[in-house]
């Protein structure tokens, strides 16, 4: 398979996590000095593929992988990322892994510092050597110059603009003497357009020096701009592996997302034109899901979908509005303002939330189902309590709690031994139904559901989605649903907003073309940010 000139070839890579197939027969080669653009939606398998390449321990712990990796014509099997580094493969992560109080030089040479031996080394070992700062600086300056950028080696990372941090990381990788292949994971995601342009120039320079690059990005025009070859992953398969020549952004977007959608929007209830939830200039400081500036309106009786790639801020929106993370801006429900940063008031304000963090935020794992279902209603609204001595203190009303739990076990078809079973003993799908029951017990007018089908099987998925649809139709409950699965959003929502870089990139009807969604997710196009219901 691998020809003489190819540096790395992946041959028939397959990987499953306990039967759940994430990669299937992925094969492609990387030539010397070649830039490969690797694209795919979240969950398409990019991360797993890179983990396999780097020999991350998590792969071996979960049963290894099938297929083989050839580097320089020899089969390699790394057992730790350090082996991969020794073999000349460098990785630049999406999040900066830099020490903020260190200078560019100190970061570039981190743990590979030039040292001068002294007497103490003989007694206490190499780590007592004194750093040779002059040599370290020369090395750093050399690595920076190979990138073709201007960067002061003595500046502290904490005082650098974002773009320089990215260059510092890349410089750290190419400071290794034997580096042959660089993996850049979303390096441009945090950069401004001009910074990204400079980075792309640097990538070309490195490729010209014979260093191969695997460039992972969701900004498709950058891929087209810089890559020699494109590999598109979808649902664990390499669906396309083509030279970049003649390929358009639209093509890639279609390959990335392209699959048929089951179910149609015709089953949906009609929603009114009346604006129910109005969000203006919302920001939320949720780590890893920062929301920068988001405005949207949701109509009464609507199912409003929020999609987008992981880390772009879609999860931050419900978490911020429900007061779980620090937030600012304005929001109003039915013309009355929504108090931010106060979960108790929000719950009393006819809003409820089914969190994506089912086991952490959603459930009291060690408690019974009746407790779980009644808990929020009890805490927020004081229901299921019996006042004693004129309300001096209150006792739990076990009887109504049991009735409530039984009611939901029946209507949501929760598989369990009864209301006294503990939440942690249920399967993922049934746990999710308990979370829904807990939110429904509040009788909310507006329900936020976040990743309702994550980690549950296909059958349970359908029931969860059907339940949401039914509550929307029968009780007129307005629902804001956040999901990474576009297909799911398109099957249930009236309108879908796509979040990109903490902002709404556009709002589309579910019938819009798949490529449209793909372009919005890639930040290629900013749609009409209007009320295109």
């Amino acid at each position: 398979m691998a020809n003489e000139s190819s540096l790395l070839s992946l041959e028939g890579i397959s990987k499953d996590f306990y039967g759940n197939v994430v990669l299937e027969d992925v094969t492609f080669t990387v030539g010397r000095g070649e830039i490969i653009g690797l694209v795919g939606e979240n969950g398409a398998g990019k991360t797993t593929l890179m983990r396999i390449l780097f020999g991350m321990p998590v792969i071996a712990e979960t049963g290894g992988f099938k297929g083989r990796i050839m580097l320089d014509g020899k089969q390699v099997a790394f057992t730790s990322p350090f082996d991969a580094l020794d073999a000349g493969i460098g990785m630049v992560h999406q999040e900066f892994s830099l020490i903020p109080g260190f200078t560019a030089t100190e970061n570039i040479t981190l743990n590979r510092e030039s040292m001068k031996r002294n007497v103490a080394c003989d007694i206490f070992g190499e780590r007592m050597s004194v750093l040779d700062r002059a040599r370290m600086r020369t090395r750093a300056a050399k690595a920076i110059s190979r990138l073709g950028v201007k960067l002061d080696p003595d500046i502290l990372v904490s005082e650098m603009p974002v773009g320089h941090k990215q260059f510092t990381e890349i410089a750290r990788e190419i400071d290794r003497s034997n580096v042959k292949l660089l993996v850049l994971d979303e390096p441009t995601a945090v950069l401004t357009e001009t910074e990204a342009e400079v980075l792309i120039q640097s990538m070309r320079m490195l490729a010209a020096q014979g260093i191969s690059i695997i460039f992972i990005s969701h900004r498709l025009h950058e891929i087209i701009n810089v890559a020699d070859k494109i590999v598109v992953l979808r649902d664990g398969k390499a669906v396309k592996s083509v030279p970049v020549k003649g390929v358009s952004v639209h093509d890639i977007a279609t390959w990335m997302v392209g699959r048929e959608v089951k179910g149609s929007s015709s089953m949906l209830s009609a929603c009114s034109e009346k604006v129910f939830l109005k969000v203006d200039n919302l920001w939320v400081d949720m780590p890893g899901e920062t929301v920068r500036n988001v405005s949207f309106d949701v109509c009464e009786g609507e199912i409003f979908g929020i999609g987008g790639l992981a880390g772009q801020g879609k999860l931050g929106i419900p978490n911020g509005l429900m007061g779980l993370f620090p937030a600012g801006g304005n929001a109003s429900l039915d013309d009355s303002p929504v108090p931010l940063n106060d979960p108790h008031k929000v719950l009393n304000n006819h809003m409820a939330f089914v969190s994506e963090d089912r086991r952490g935020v959603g459930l009291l794992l060690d408690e019974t189902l009746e407790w779980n279902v009644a808990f929020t209603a009890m805490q927020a609204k004081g229901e299921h309590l019996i006042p004693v001595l004129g309300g001096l203190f209150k006792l739990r009303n076990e009887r109504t709690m049991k009735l409530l739990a039984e009611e939901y076990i029946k209507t949501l078809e929760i598989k369990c031994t009864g209301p006294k079973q503990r939440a942690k003993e249920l399967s993922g799908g049934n746990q999710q139904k308990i979370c829904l029951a807990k939110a429904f017990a509040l009788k909310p007018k507006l329900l936020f559901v976040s990743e309702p089908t994550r980690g549950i099987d296909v059958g349970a998925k359908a029931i969860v989605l059907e339940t949401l649809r039914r509550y929307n139709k029968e009780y007129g409950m307005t629902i804001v649903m956040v999901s990474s699965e576009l297909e799911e959003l398109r099957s249930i929502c009236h309108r879908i907003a796509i979040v990109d870089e903490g902002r709404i990139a556009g709002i589309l009807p579910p019938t819009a073309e798949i490529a449209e969604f793909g372009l919005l997710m890639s930040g290629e196009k900013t749609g009409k940010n209007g009320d295109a219901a």
Partner: protein
Amino acid sequence: MNPLKKFEPLKFISDNIVTVIFLALTIIAIPFSRLSGIYILSNLIDRFARSAFLVFALILPIMAGMGINFAMVLGATAGQIGLIFAIDYNVMGIQGLLLATCIGVPLSIFLGWFCGQVLNRARGREMVTGFILGYFMDGVYQFFGLYVMGWLIPIRTREVMQVTGSGVRNTLALGPVRGGLDNILNLQVGPFHLPLLTFGVIAFLCLFIIWFRKTKLGHDMRAIGQDQGVSHSAGIAVDRTRIMAIVISTILACIGQIIYLQNMGNMGTYTSQRQAGYFAAAAILVGGATVSKATIMNVFVGVFLVHSLYITMPIAGKEIFKSAMVGQYMSDFINYAIIALALVLHAWRNKRNADLARAGLRGHADKDSALAAQAGAVQ
């Protein structure tokens, strides 16, 4: 920071508020105490020689991001065990101190290694864990002092033994080793008495710390102190390095406690180690160190300020309230209050920085208004 940045007096004060409060208290206390400058200064020199070494023990763990090493009490305990043996075997002077060091240092290495193991399992909660470890050590030490000594290990000297006939006395006179280091090389300059050898030891320690920061190990500690995750992914042995920081700190605390006690001349067998911990923590914080940043300068400033207050406060209390007890009470009270204040301020600064970072979420226009709101909230 930009060197051209203007010096802002208000910001300087707010950044060094602990030091400023302490300085103000001392300046107020001095005239009330009616002590002469010469008296205060000669006392300061004596006390500096006595306690500076102890405070240096805290620098490395702060550098390695483990906060204030309250578990330095373990090292101090090891030093005291060494001294108990030196007194019991009646080894005099500097030889006694060297014997105490030879017994204390291996013990400190073991205790520091143990402590480091525990702290690695209590990541992010090092300070409170270290604090409790100190209490745990108290129990072990009391068992050793009250039962093991005199039962498994015979006590040879009557002055060491309790009146009841077993265990080590509550207060131990260190007559044989008193001034063992201080009195070897002395210089009398006017009214001032300068223990040159002790100063030499402290100077050597300063040079060691300056040199240590430049070594690979010191560099790794700084890296780990800022980000353990990044350091680990760069291949630095994080856990091992953290243990080394604690071991070195424990050894320094052991030697520091021996120097402290040879100057004092007597030892509260079951209490001195704990006082050493509180004193060192208060001193380094008063000197302007934070839970995440400490320099040699912080140690010097802190030791001088804390002792200035210790010297003047009881006398000032006596003059104002006609009771020396009130003054003594005040200086103890301030000691604990300063630790609490510094910890609260550290948490507050972290929160303020998080708020400032948050203000940048939406770009410059919003940042300015958020900063204005922040300023309003502060006022």
